[in-house]
Structure formats: C-alpha cells, structure tokens
C-alpha cells in the first residue's frame, strides 16, 4: 500500500529531512510468467499497465523498459497538451485524453502539474487562415473549445509576439484552445509508475527485449536481457523502436523513425504564459515553471535512431522564433536534444491488434504523442484486455493502411513531417 501524498505527509517527512519517503515503485526481478507484458516504460506504456490493472483487473503484468522509465520520448518532448485535431476520430481520441488530464493529478495522487494555459496556433498566410478557421469549426462541432483570434486579439493574448505586417510571414490571426496547456512530463511517467506499482504491476528497468517467441500465429513470450518470460499477451509501446520490435515478430509497420529536436533556454522571469505554435514557419514556444523557454524544432527528413538530429533543423526554428519574438534575440540556449519519433504516413497513431494473436501495437504517435498519454494508455489497455478496440480507437487500427481509410492529420500535427 502506498502512503498518500498530502500536505501532512510533506510536513511529517520534513521532520526526518525527507530521508524516509517510501519508495514510489519497486525494483523487482522478472517472474517466469505474466498475464500480459508491456514493452516500453514510457508514459504510454506505464499508463497502459495502470489502466489494465485498475479498470480491467489484470494485475499480473510486467512493464519491460530497456533503460529507465520515462527516459525516452516521455522525457524529451515539449509537454504540450491539446485536442484541436481536424477529423472526428482524432477529436474523439485526443479529447478523451484531455478530459483524463483534467483530473489526473487527483486520480494518481501525484501532481503532474497540468496547466491549462491555452495553446495558440498562428496563421501566416491565407491558406493557413482558411485551414485554421475550418479546423476551429470542426473542433466546435465535436464539442472541443476553439476560437479564432484576429491579429489584434493574438497580440492581446500574447503581447510579446511581433504582429508587424512587415515581417516575412506576418501573423494574420490564430486559433486558441483555452483548455489546452502543458504538464510536467517526468511526473506523468512517475505518477503512472507509482500507481501501477501500487496495483501490483512489476516495473522492470534495464531489461531489453531481444526477441518475441511465437508458436505458429500466437505469441508465447519474450526473450529479454534478463532471460525468457512467458506470456500470452504483449503490448508494444516502444515509440521510435516499434519497427525494431515488429521485425522481431516478423511484422512490418508503416512507420519511419526520425529524430525530432527540442531545446531549452536559460531560465528567465515569466515572459510567456501560454503556448504558441506556428506550423508555417515552424516555431513553437512555451515557458516551463522553472523559467526556461521550451522550444520545439522539426524532424530530420531521413531515418535515424541517433537521438541527435541536424543543426540546420534547429537553426531554421530559431530563425522563425527570432522573427516572431524579437524579445528573445539575446537569450542563450542551454540544452538541445533529440528523440526518435515513429511517424505514420497519415500522421495519426496506431492502437491496434495485429495479425498475430496476442500481439498489440501502440505506436506511430510521431511528433505528438505526449498529449495523448492518458487516453492512449486507457484505450490500449481496453484493446489488450478485450482483444477488441474501444470505439474511440477503432479508426486507429493497423488495417487502415490496407483499406485506405486513413486519418490524415498532417495539418493538425503541428510539426511538418
């Protein structure tokens, strides 16, 4: 049983110099057999395990993580959460996640620092204006809050934006989703890990999957760096490495893995209290609670697993940032990093069964998976437990690439793929 985090436990632990806090999750050795194994201990994988245990009462689960939990893309993204996607299927999926975000800290008894500071998407040309207005209408028809702002309203909402009409790509307006915002990325992984551990889930770190064992068309277990583990159900949530795991099972996925970069500046006083994204010039920025500007750059155009990315991509983003926010011209950037994102041809994810019995994939989130973490875990858990998709992720099956029923979200994906 986990001790409850509260102001009282904080005071109590202050008397012992915070040295006697209970471990948030254990460090077990893998058992010989599990009812289900989740490959990948990022936010999505841990959330999947949590909801499998909590909602579907399957508690004999292991989460296998080759490094440390939350050390992949969960710890590398720009923490933006929104649900203003164009198509009905995506709106359903991302808003399901957003609704869970709104009460997640209370549910997990773990402060994920969800901050609904709003996300603004800027328009820089007439086509942008048309597309974004269309998306605003589509969002509202799906019950998602979205408003169109003209240039003056953009300036009023975020005064540091350069709205001069003389810049290369002037701001012609933008959309605003007020319920959108950010959360603390590490806390999401840690909160789900703690919650899953309390329900009996084994979180096994430094355990790399080396092979998927099959008996005919059925999975029988996984070969790992800590030995063979028997199981009948495997949920793969390996982000950039999804294809690597798929190859082990003899499957091919419609994915390409590419480096996506982000960077943070030195910390400064509060200067931007919202998230501003711009597709056309490829710049997006927010400010962390620590005061750093968090800036998202683009993907490289080639397949790579190096977690680095090219300098030219960063340069392009900073060029746009400087034109839109002249106030940042003398900011120093502290850190830059890359994460490997698995991109689907239609910029929508796959949460699906496969042709192999007992093998499930949750992948293809591309550049925008963080926002969906709770919803993705919830729906993937449903899919694994029932061997059938939930109605909210039915459209995101792997078979859509055969049927042609794609969910094209390149416009709403924000990062140009």
């Amino acid at each position, binding site marked *: 049983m986990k001790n409850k985090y509260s102001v009282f436990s904080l005071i109590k632990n202050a008397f012992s110099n915070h040295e006697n806090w209970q471990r948030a999750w254990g460090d077990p050795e893998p058992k010989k057999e599990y009812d289900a194994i989740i490959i990948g201990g990022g936010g999505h994988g841990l959330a999947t395990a949590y909801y499998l245990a909590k909602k579907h009462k399957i508690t004999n689960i292991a989460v296998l993580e080759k490094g440390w939990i939350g050390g992949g893309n969960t710890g590398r993204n720009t923490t933006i959460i929104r649900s203003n996607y164009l198509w009905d299927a995506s709106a359903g999926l991302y808003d399901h996640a957003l609704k869970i975000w709104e009460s997640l800290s209370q549910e997990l008894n773990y402060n994920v620092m969800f901050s609904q500071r709003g996300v603004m998407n800027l328009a820089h040309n007439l086509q942008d204006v048309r597309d974004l207005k269309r998306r605003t209408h589509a969002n509202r028809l799906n019950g998602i809050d979205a408003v169109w702002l003209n240039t003056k309203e953009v300036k009023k909402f975020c005064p540091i934006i350069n709205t001069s009409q003389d810049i290369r790509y002037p701001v012609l307006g933008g959309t605003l989703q007020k319920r959108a915002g950010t959360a603390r990325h590490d806390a999401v992984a840690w909160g789900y890990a703690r919650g899953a551990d309390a329900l009996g889930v084994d979180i096994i770190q430094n355990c790399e999957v080396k092979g998927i064992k099959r008996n005919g068309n059925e999975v029988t277990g996984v070969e790992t760096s800590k030995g063979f583990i028997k199981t009948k159900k495997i949920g793969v949530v390996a982000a950039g*490495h999804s*294809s*690597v795991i798929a*190859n082990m099972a003899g499957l*091919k*996925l*419609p*994915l*390409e*893995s590419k480096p996506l970069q982000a960077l943070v500046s030195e910390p400064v006083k509060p200067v931007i209290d919202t998230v501003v994204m711009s597709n056309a010039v490829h710049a997006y920025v927010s400010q962390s609670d620590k005061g750093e500007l968090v800036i998202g750059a683009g993907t490289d*155009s*080639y*397949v*790579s*697993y*190096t977690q*680095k*990315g*090219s*300098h*030219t991509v960063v340069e392009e983003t900073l060029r746009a940032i400087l034109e839109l926010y002249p106030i940042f011209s003398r900011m120093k950037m502290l850190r830059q990093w890359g994460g490997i994102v*698995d991109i689907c*041809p239609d910029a929508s994810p796959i949460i699906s069964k496969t042709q192999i019995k007992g093998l499930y994939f949750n992948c293809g989130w591309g550049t925008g998976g963080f926002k969906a973490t709770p919803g993705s875990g919830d729906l993937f858990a449903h899919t694994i437990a029932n061997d059938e998709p939930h109605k909210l992720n039915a459209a995101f099956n792997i078979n859509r*690439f*055969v*049927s*042609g029923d794609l969910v094209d979200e390149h416009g709403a994906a924000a990062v140009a793929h």
Partner: protein
Amino acid sequence: MFVINCPFCGERDQSEFSSGGEAHIIRPKQPTELSDDQWAEYLFMRKNIKGVQFERWNHAHGCRKWFNMIRDTSNDKIHAIYKMGEKPPIV
C-alpha cells in the same frame, strides 16, 4: 548531420540532400492486378531498420540527381554510395 559524397558533385553537407526513404522498392509492373494487401505493402510498409539500411537520396539543392546509399541508421555512418541501376556493393 553528416557529409554525403554525391556521386556526381563530390562531398557536400547533408542539408543539400533530401532522403527518398527505403531503396529497391520496385513499382508494381501490373498495378491493376494488385490486391489491397499488396498495395499497402508497396505504398506504406517499411523495414525502418535500426542498423544498416539501403536508401535512396536526392541531391535536391545541387545536381538534383538520385542515387542510392547504404547507411547505418544507428550512428548515421555511410558505408557506400552507388548510382541508380547499379548493383549494391557488398559492405
């Protein structure tokens, strides 16, 4: 970020090139006879290898010619570059 030795122009920065993805995917000779599965395989399914991969590249901001490359995607090291239509060298 790396340097690519274009078979027509010599060594140039990677930013001059654009990646055309996996190489040696042959366009179906009789598209009308393909099943949906075969179309999906041709259009969308990719090996996406972590390790040595065969790729097509285009010198988009140079001679604009296409060529093939053998590259290790786990460290971006280029093993060989060869022209379109040539047999891939053994590396």
